[in-house]
Every structure is written in structure tokens, then in C-alpha cells.
């Protein structure tokens, strides 16, 4: 989002900045092999402690928050400086897990919509490596219909009292503050009665638990709000204008996921699950690398992965030159889901029994670890659900890109307290 960018406040050229960063990184940050990086597991607290420590070093060295304004702890430089830094930091350990959602979504949204105090306090604390931010949007009552949230914020004197539940909050257990969307007026249509709050997660009235996924991952959290008290200073933007804030969040999320955010520092894959399955390696490990059928299967998956990268590039260019509308990013989202399904299915097909029975032994060391393929298969659909389902993506593409008629919204224009909800 260019309108959130501040003008360059330096006389140092990008090249000089990059040169200074190169020297500083070599002296201050741990070096890594970019082709075999140490991955951080988001579900583990130690990953977050490490990320904060690395972020502190960046801050102390004067290389944190490159594109955030100076008055909020950043450097106030434009994207070119961040891109140059990204190129320099490839061979160093970076606090990559702070990019999403802390910097690219939450801090970016606070910068767009927050009060002066929120910007000054939260953004600078994140840049210093003191605080982590998260999003509290989805609810157990429904995923795709985000504006249909039923967590309620009620006025009591000069306080807001929050009751309800949120779910699928990325890394919320590690976070200090969260952006929480709640309903403040039930007598108006659903988008018009929402308010965004910035919530300290250690406040009384919040119970958090980890969600355990089928693959064992425990990164996501569910939170219950039971009489949580907030002041007016917690409101982000205006009361009953929370949907505007949420829209900014979704905008920043799409840009971040596509790798197009100026607020991300470092662009490498942050963990092993972002790495595609190694189909060639699997074919070799199972002794099938000479089988034309397996070569066809694996080749198809390899092709699809390359096409995905080409599509990302094509969509970015096309949005840039106006030949595709801005929400064409949804094409990437859907293609990613489709590609992940193919890659995971192909890996399972090649792994055969070794993907579902642990066949590894001293005599068959190459088969060790292949059951990971089967475990990954069990949570195959996460790529088609996270960040909006593939079905929602198809609605967006057909309606907003192709101009097909919109789906009937039975809640349109109707006071939210009259809208039909889940049968308990």
C-alpha cells in the first residue's frame, strides 16, 4: 500500500545502505546456508524467543522497521531499501516468523487505521523486538463469513465488555496484543455494527488454548473472552467502523501472502512445511526413479510448481499494468491450493506403503522418514482452507474478476439481530 509509505528520509543511496547492511550483517547476525536454512517451528515458544532476540539485534543495529515511519520506531525508508536489505540478508538468520502477521498485517493495519498512541506504542514495541501481534478474526461459529462475527462488545460506563470466542488465530499464544473484531451494534446490517479492538492478551477474562491439528501442529489458538474489560483507547479506527479496519487487514494479508509487502524483512521460507515435497528424492528413495510412470507423476508435480511461480510473477505484472484487477491475487491463492493438493497427492502415490508404514530400518535407511509424507497428506486440505476456502476464492474470481452475478446474501441490508444463524 503506497499511501501508507512515508517519503524517504535519508540522503544515503540504496547502494550505500546495502553496503552498510552487508558489513553490519556479517558482524552481527548468525550466518546460515540459504539452501538449507534452520527452520523455526511456530508452535514452539523458543522460536519466538529467538525471533525477538534477532529482532532486537536488528533494532540495535539500525536495520529494523525499514519501511515504518521514524516517529514509530522505523527508518522511514521506501521499499527499495527493504528490497536491498532482503537481498543482503539471505545468508543470515532472520526473525522471519515476525513478518506474518506481526509486521506485514497487524502493524501495517495499525499504521493505516490506529490512533496516534496505538501507532507509537505498538508499532515501535514490535520493531524493538519487545512485542508480537496477532489477529483475532475468525470465530467457531463460521469461517468464510467473516463479517458475521458474534463476539460482542457491550458498553458499560466508560468500558467495553467483551464476550465470545475467536479461533484459528495464528501464533496467538506467543503474542502480546491482538486485533479483535467484535459486534457493537446488533440493530444494523452486519458490516455496519462491527468495531476493531486492540487487546492486551494477558488481560483478565481471556482463556487461550492451542488447537491441535491432525498433523500434530499446535500453532493455531482458540480464545474465549469472558467479561474482558477494555477502554476506549483500545478501539482501532471508529466504533462501528470495524469492517473498514478488517478490510485493511485482509488487504495487507493478501499482499503479505503474495510476498509483496514492504514491511516484510527477509523473504526466505520460514519453515519446512513451506518447502514442497521432494518428488525426485522420493522416487530415488523408493527405487522408482527409472519407472516411466513415476517419472510422469513426479514430472507433473514439478511442472505445476514451476507454473505456480510463473503465475505469481504474471499476476503481479498484470495487476501492475492494469490488465488484471487488484483482486486477481485470488488466482494465486486458488492455484496454490490446487498445486499443494497435487504435490501432496503425488508424494503419497510415489511413497507407496513407506508413506503410511514406517519401513525405515538400518537395512533400509533410505525409507526412514518417508512416513512424513503420509502425515502431511492427512492435513492436505489446510492449503485449501487457510486464509479463506477455495470455494470463496472461486466466488471472488467469478464475481469480481469475471463479473458473474453475485451469490444471494440472505443477510443483506437486514439488521444483524434478525439474521438467521447456526442451529445449536
Amino acid at each position, binding site marked *: 500500500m503506497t499511501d501508507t509509505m512515508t517519503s524517504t528520509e535519508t540522503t544515503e543511496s540504496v547502494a550505500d545502505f546495502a553496503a552498510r547492511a552487508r558489513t553490519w550483517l556479517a558482524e552481527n547476525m548468525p550466518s546460515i546456508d540459504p539452501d538449507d536454512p534452520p527452520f523455526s517451528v511456530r508452535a514452539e515458544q523458543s522460536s519466538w524467543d529467538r525471533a525477538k532476540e534477532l529482532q532486537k539485534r536488528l533494532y540495535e543495529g539500525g536495520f529494523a522497521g525499514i519501511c515504518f515511519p521514524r516517529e514509530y520506531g522505523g527508518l522511514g525508508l521506501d521499499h527499495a531499501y527493504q528490497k536491498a536489505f532482503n537481498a543482503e540478508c539471505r545468508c543470515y538468520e532472520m526473525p522471519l516468523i515476525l513478518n506474518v502477521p506481526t509486521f506485514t498485517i497487524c502493524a501495517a493495519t495499525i499504521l493505516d487505521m490506529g490512533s496516534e498512541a496505538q501507532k507509537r506504542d505498538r508499532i515501535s514495541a514490535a520493531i524493538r523486538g519487545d512485542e508480537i501481534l496477532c489477529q483475532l478474526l475468525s470465530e467457531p461459529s463460521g469461517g468464510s463469513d467473516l463479517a458475521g462475527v458474534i463476539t460482542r462488545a457491550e458498553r458499560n460506563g466508560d468500558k467495553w465488555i467483551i464476550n465470545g470466542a475467536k479461533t484459528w488465530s495464528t501464533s496467538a499464544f506467543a503474542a502480546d496484543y491482538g486485533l479483535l473484531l467484535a459486534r457493537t451494534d446488533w440493530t444494523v446490517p452486519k458490516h455496519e455494527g462491527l468495531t476493531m479492538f486492540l487487546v492486551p492478551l494477558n488481560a483478565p477474562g481471556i482463556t487461550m488454548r492451542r488447537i491441535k491439528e491432525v498433523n500434530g501442529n499446535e500453532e493455531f489458538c482458540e480464545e474465549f473472552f469472558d467479561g474482558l474489560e477494555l477502554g476506549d483507547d483500545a478501539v482501532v479506527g471508529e466504533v462501528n467502523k470495524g469492517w473498514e479496519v478488517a478490510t485493511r487487514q485482509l488487504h495487507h494479508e493478501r499482499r503479505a501472502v503474495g510476498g509483496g509487502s514492504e514491511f516484510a524483512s527477509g523473504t526466505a521460507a520460514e519453515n519446512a512445511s513451506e518447502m514442497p515435497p521432494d518428488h*525426485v*528424492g522420493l522416487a530415488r528413495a523408493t527405487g522408482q*526413479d527409472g519407472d*516411466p510412470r513415476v*517419472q*510422469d*507423476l*513426479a*514430472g*507433473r508435480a*514439478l*511442472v*505445476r510448481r*514451476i*507454473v*505456480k511461480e*510463473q*503465475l505469481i*510473477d*504474471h*499476476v503481479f*505484472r*498484470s495487476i501492475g*499494468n492494469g490488465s*488484471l484487477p487488484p483482486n*486477481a491475487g485470488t*488466482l494465486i491463492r*486458488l*492455484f496454490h491450493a*490446487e498445486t499443494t493438493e497435487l504435490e501432496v497427492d503425488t508424494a503419497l502415490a510415489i511413497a507407496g506403503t513407506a508413506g503410511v508404514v514406517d519401513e525405515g530400518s538400518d537395512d533400509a535407511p533410505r525409507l526412514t522418514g518417508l512416513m512424513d509424507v503420509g502425515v502431511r497428506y492427512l492435513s492436505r486440505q489446510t492449503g485449501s482452507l487457510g486464509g479463506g476456502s477455495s*470455494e470463496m*476464492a*472461486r*466466488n*471472488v*474470481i*467469478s*464475481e469480481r*474478476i*469475471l463479473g*458473474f*452475478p453475485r*451469490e444471494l446474501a440472505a443477510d443483506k441490508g437486514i439488521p444483524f439481530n434478525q439474521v438467521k444463524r447456526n442451529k445449536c
Partner: protein
Amino acid sequence: MTTANPEQLLFASTTQTFLEKQASLTHVRGLHASGVSFQPEWWQRAAELGWASLLVPEELGGGSVSGDGVADLAMVAEQIGHTVAPGPLHPVSIVLAGLVEAPGGHEQTIEALVSGELVASWAVYEPARPFAPLLAATKATRTDGGYRLDGVKDRVEAGADCGAVLVVAELDGAVRQFLVPTDIPGVTVTAQDSVDLVKRYARVRFDGVEVGESAAVGTAEQTPDIVERQRQIALVLQCAEIVGVLDAVLAMTNQWLFDRHSFGRPLASYQALKHRAADMKMWFEAARATTAGAVRAVADRSPDAPKLVSVAKAYVAERAPVMLQDCVQLHGGIGVTWEHDLHLFLRRVALYRAMFGSPEDHHRAVYALSSETEANA
């Protein structure tokens, strides 16, 4: 295919106007009805627009408006796809792509191809064998004044309308290419039909065909690279033309979904159909993206070009027939009639799916190239 300069835009619009006026679907049906593949004078007019000069350097009488002949050629192919136009753009371009790599002694042939006077084609396939351009059972042997050729080639595009063919043959254990006129003794050309309404192929037999020293194109050392360049041009042309086909067919199908009403509402309002249109839009943009990637790699002579043309062919030729059939389905019964134009497009796409390597072949090619990379890493 990407952002164009004013000269490219002019070239594109001239090409488009020419195709709309002189190569519409009605023309294609007319040619088919009269059993004609293309009219030579039509091809000469196309050549006058510059279609055959794009891969040829200026010093050999060619040139392209943008200086990027491969991109311009892909643009022409994409436009051709809009009406599945006739003509020997593919065979002529493939032969020229080879000749300009080793032009010595072939200057006149290049000039005649650029002007459209001569049509030539790549004789690379052999009967009952898959596409394997560096394996030839056709034999060349040295004679006093040149070479003698013996063997059979088939699936030679526009073979019956060619004045010359570029023949892949084995000479002294190495693969070589020879430019052979089709009207000399010992050459027998037999037409082969295809599912396409206007694209024709031919079996070309060489029985003790004598050619001069100058018939050879490139040395034994140069030939594998020249053949690879020709293969890349062939695949890029196919992919670009299929992108044009998809563009036209999706526009036609989406319009149909808006116009056609059932149960009092447009088909476009049914979510089950909207989702299929969304998938097809995504696959179309992916086809365009991977084709553009292949075009750039071939234009830049990137080391990745062998892989990226296979990636593009594998993806585009796997997806496009599925999309075409789905468009038939979305049209309903009208889609399987001769009267409706969909089958003209389906024919071309089915043809290209198989020619110069199927998606399955290219999957294996990409596997082999990725496997090499991993072994070297």
C-alpha cells in the same frame, strides 16, 4: 504477450485485422469444404506482413518490429489461435529457426521462405516412432558430390504443400540435417489427414535421393543445438497458439453463460457453473504465464529454455483439452454439433496436445532435467 511498444502494437493490430478479414472461422470452414489446407497466395500476403521474417536477422533479409522476434512470433501464433487460422507458420518458422543458426549456403532459401515464395517443413518424425529429434533411422551417406538419403519421414506438417523439407538423418553415426527440395528424383510425398479442419501432414519417402554438399545444415557439432532450437520454437508456437484458442473459447463460453437462461436465470448465476468458470480463468492465466515464461527463455536463449518449454507444453497441453471439453459441456447439446465452432478449436488443441511430445512425455523430460540438477547439486 507482455507490455508492447507502439511498433509492436501496430504489428499486432495489422496481424489481427488480416486474420479477421482473411482467416476467419468461416474461411477455415470454407477451406475445409473445398479440401484445401491453405492458399499459397494467402500465405504470401501473410509473409508480406512480416510473419516469416521474425526469426531471421536483418543481414539475412529478416527482422522484427520489437527486436525480439521470438516474442513477436508468439504474438502472431496467439492471434492465429483466435480463429485457428490456416497456414504454414509453424513449419516455416521451425525451418527458419534452424537455417539461421547455420545460414552459410542457404541464403537464397532463407530469402524465399521470408518472402513466402517457398514453404518448407521439418521432416523429423519417423513412422510409428515417438518424437525423438536426435534419433533418426533415416540414413545419409556421403557421395562424390554430396549426400544420398534413404528413409521415411512422416507427420511432416504441410508436407504436400512444401517446396523443401529439412530432414533429420544419421550420417556417420551423428545426427545431421539436410535441406531437400521435394521435386527431385527419389522423393515421394503422400498426404496424411489430421483431426484439424485445415492442418495436413505428409509421409515423405527418400529413395536414394541425391543432394549436393550444400544441402547439409550445420556441422555434426552444431546439429544437436540447432535441433534443440527448432524444438523450442515448435513448442513455443504450439503453446502460444493454444493460449489464443483458450482466450477465444473462454470469451465465447462466458458470454454463453451470461446469455443463456434456464429456470428464469442466466447460467452465469449458478454457483456450480461459476466455480468452473473461475477454475478455467485461473488455468487460462497460468497457461498464459507459463507460455510467456517459455517465450522469454527461448528469446533470451536462457540455459533454462529446454526445461521451460517442456514445462509450458506439459501444462498448456494437459489443461487445454480438459478446458475445451468443459466448454463443450457448458454449452450443452449445441457444443457437439458440426454447426457450432467449438469443435474447430477442440480439433487444433487435440492435435497440438500430441504433436512434438505429449504432456506425459514432457513431464518425464522435466523430471529428467530436475533429476540431473539434483545429482549435480
